[in-house]
């Protein structure tokens, strides 16, 4: 095994992991926002994000024959996914969580599971009427944009850029860019605006925030709207990254994203991003393990297949939580007696 072949491969694996990690991070933010305000694991979030993916697919399909810049189509897809997923999340909160605001904590958890089951079947029925179930993302082609690499003249969505022997997909770059923009927007929204301040106040103490003249219910709705919109974005990104989506494909990334949120310290926004990126890179490395094993001639490594990806994520989680019980960036909960 020589370094010259290994290094570009490793870079590719890490970049792939980062892309995956950004998708996870944006999903994880949806969990962590809701958790921060309501201390509720929103099990329905994985379906909200699949809804976003489905909406993105439908937009790409409708706009297929419209002559338009590919990036504009992507923007329209992202915006419609954000709006619909956000509205769906608000609706879920209104119907399934708000009536249970004062119930014991596990009760809304069960309604969340119920909502997630309902949404899974609803999505499947809607797709069933259209006569298709596994949605294959066909990205808009035929546009000349800013991504013009040295080896390929001008890249369209879906093609590769090739520099110093490292091949990176254009969609991967777009995933990272969109994620960074949404992270920036979220950061601005939460830390710089009046609404963000109010949301943080409600997250800290709902009752006292109410006494200060903040309408807690409205702020919780706003949180669900933002969380749902993030879910919509991540859905479209997920579709672009993996190519196919169906009604049940939210489960796996949902679990991993929630793990990421916990890993980073649930309720913490930078934590969710860090957790997502960590898990993405780890999964990507485990996925590449058999290739690495082949290169290095280690038979045991070659036997490691993709089904160990989730185990790897959980083992990292267990190790980190044992040494840091509140996650990487979680605030330790000082208990006063």
């Amino acid at each position, binding site marked *: 095994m020589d370094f010259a072949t290994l290094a570009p491969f490793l870079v590719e694996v890490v970049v792939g992991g980062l892309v995956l990690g950004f998708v996870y991070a944006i999903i994880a933010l949806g969990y962590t926002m809701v*958790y921060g305000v309501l*201390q509720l*694991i929103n099990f329905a979030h994985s379906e909200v994000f699949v809804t976003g993916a489905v909406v993105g697919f439908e937009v790409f399909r409708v706009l297929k024959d419209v002559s338009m810049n590919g990036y504009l189509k992507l923007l329209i897809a992202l915006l419609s996914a954000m709006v619909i997923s956000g509205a769906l999340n608000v609706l879920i909160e209104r*119907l*399934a969580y708000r*009536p*249970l*605001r*004062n*119930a*014991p*904590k*596990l*009760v*809304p*958890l*069960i*309604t969340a*599971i*119920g*909502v*997630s*089951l*309902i949404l*899974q*079947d*609803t999505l*499947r*029925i809607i797709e*069933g*009427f259209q006569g298709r179930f596994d949605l294959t993302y066909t990205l808009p082609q035929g546009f000349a944009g800013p991504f013009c690499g040295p080896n390929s003249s001008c890249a369209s969505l879906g093609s590769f850029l090739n520099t110093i022997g490292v091949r990176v997909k254009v969609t991967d770059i777009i995933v990272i860019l969109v994620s960074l923009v949404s992270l920036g927007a979220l950061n601005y929204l939460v830390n710089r605006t009046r609404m963000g301040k109010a949301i943080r106040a409600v997250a800290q103490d*709902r*009752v006292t925030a*109410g006494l200060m003249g903040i309408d807690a219910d409205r702020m919780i709705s706003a949180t669900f709207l933002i969380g749902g919109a993030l879910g919509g974005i991540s859905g479209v990104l997920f579709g672009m990254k993996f190519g196919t989506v169906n009604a049940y494909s939210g489960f796996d990334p949902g*679990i991993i994203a*929630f*793990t990421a949120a*916990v890993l980073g310290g*649930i309720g913490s926004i930078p934590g969710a991003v860090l957790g997502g990126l960590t898990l993405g890179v780890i999964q990507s490395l485990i996925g590449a393990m058999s290739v690495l094993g082949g290169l290095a001639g280690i038979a045991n490594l070659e036997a490691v*297949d993709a*089904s*160990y990806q*989730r*185990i790897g*994520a*959980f*083992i990292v*989680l*267990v190790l980190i*939580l*044992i040494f840091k*019980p*509140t*996650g990487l960036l979680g605030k330790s*909960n000082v*208990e006063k*007696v």
Partner: protein
Amino acid sequence: MTAARKPPRASQAEQSVLLLLFFLISSAVLLVSHNSDLLNQMGHLGTILKNPIVEAVMVSLFLANILFAYLWRAHPVVKLIVALGSLLFVLPLAGRADTSLLDLSIQVMIFAALALGLNIVVGLAGLLDLGYIAFFAVGAYTWSIFASPRFSEILKYFGENPGATNAGTLALGLALTVITAASMVYINRQTQRTAATAATTWSFRLASFGLVAGLILTARAALVLMSGQAGALAGGINPAFFWLFLALAIFTAAVVGVLIGLPVLKLKGDYLAIITLGLGEVIRVLALNLDLYSAGSQGITPVGSASVPWFNALAGRLGFEESQYNLLFLYFLVLLVILGIMQVNVRLDKSRIGRAWIAIRDDEVAAQAMGVPLLQTKLIAFATGASFAGVMGMIFAAKQTFISPESFVLNESIMVLAMVILGGMGSIPGVVLGAAVVALLRFRVLPGLGEASANVDWIPQQVNPSQLQKLIFGAILVAMMLLRPEGLLPSRRRQLELHHDENQEDDSGHGNAGALGKGNQGDVYSPGLAPVKENDRSGGAK
């Protein structure tokens, strides 16, 4: 709160008669509707009774007997007659005509036992465990590996790949095991007398690693030395070992519970939830990938069961077919086991350890201050819950005669949690009811709905209820939780806790401070009250 609001209740005698009447009618209908000869003679009525929806309703109504026997204030003797009559007499009799009924009852009881186990962990001790089904898997695999051709294949493998293993390895492994175990006990004694130092904790850890190594060496050597027996064990071990393994499954599941619990029980609430979820998945993925031991995704089959000649003879005399013997045997076994589990539950609920669990659930810090050893108490909860799951997993494996990782997915853990919360967390009859409701919905009512509407023309294929099982189930979960957030049969203790706030409002009617107004229901803060919300946060599974 006042007596005037309660409706006048029927007298005991009236209720007794009603209960008996209901029992007799529903039993008769159940027996008739599962007798195909009779149904064929009845013509039109027979077709109605054969309808899957009607059948599901009949079964549910019949099972409601037992619920009513518990709920109504009938005479105790009548209650006993109804409960025993339906479980020991009517149900097996109906099951003779329709084996699926026996299967369903076993399924319901298995889930009831699982829910009772999880109820200890979540309902009493307040530890949100999302990987509970893993213990079920441990019990199931403990038995399936040995009671199927798997074991001989494992022996064959070790016979072909013995490595450097011989009798000397066995001796070494045993010696290592004994020495490390003894030193662990010794260190433990020492630390009880004097405070633990870094040296003792590290030597303890070192010894435990040695113990694991010793056990692995011993097991490997034993397998290699036994490999000559591979041919003789081609059909699995002697079914007489069933009873030994019943105890072993309880023990193994409890040990796994402790092993999983030890590192993670420091964590709280949702951190604990996600980490148990993760460890549950780890066990499932291991079962999926350790092909030699678990046959991977193909699953282990056929898994044997106990053979009890005298029981088979009895069943044969009662008119059961030979293929039904085993199911009937398992039915009575499950009935017995679940009675035992309920007894243990009732005792635990009232015992010192039960009160310690509740104390930890309500306020960890206060409980610790009162001298409750946190880790130990939580571990006991984990191990107890796990052992219930372990024994039921083994019975499940014997019933299905087939075991694969498919049966132990996260969804199943969530189902069991839904049973516990739907029924009423912390309440034993509630949890059993929740399990029965969920299991009936999943295995009888919803499939029945799908079957009945499969041939109806005006329902398009896409919205056939058999395709909508998840949706309907989810809608029922949401509706039930919105209507009865405390569960179907809430425990008395919990009910008092939950209505704490309403009682406060009642007080405010007497001139007590109600200054915070209606907008903040349930979060009333005043110097005299415990901050309810703070508990919600730290308790996790409140």
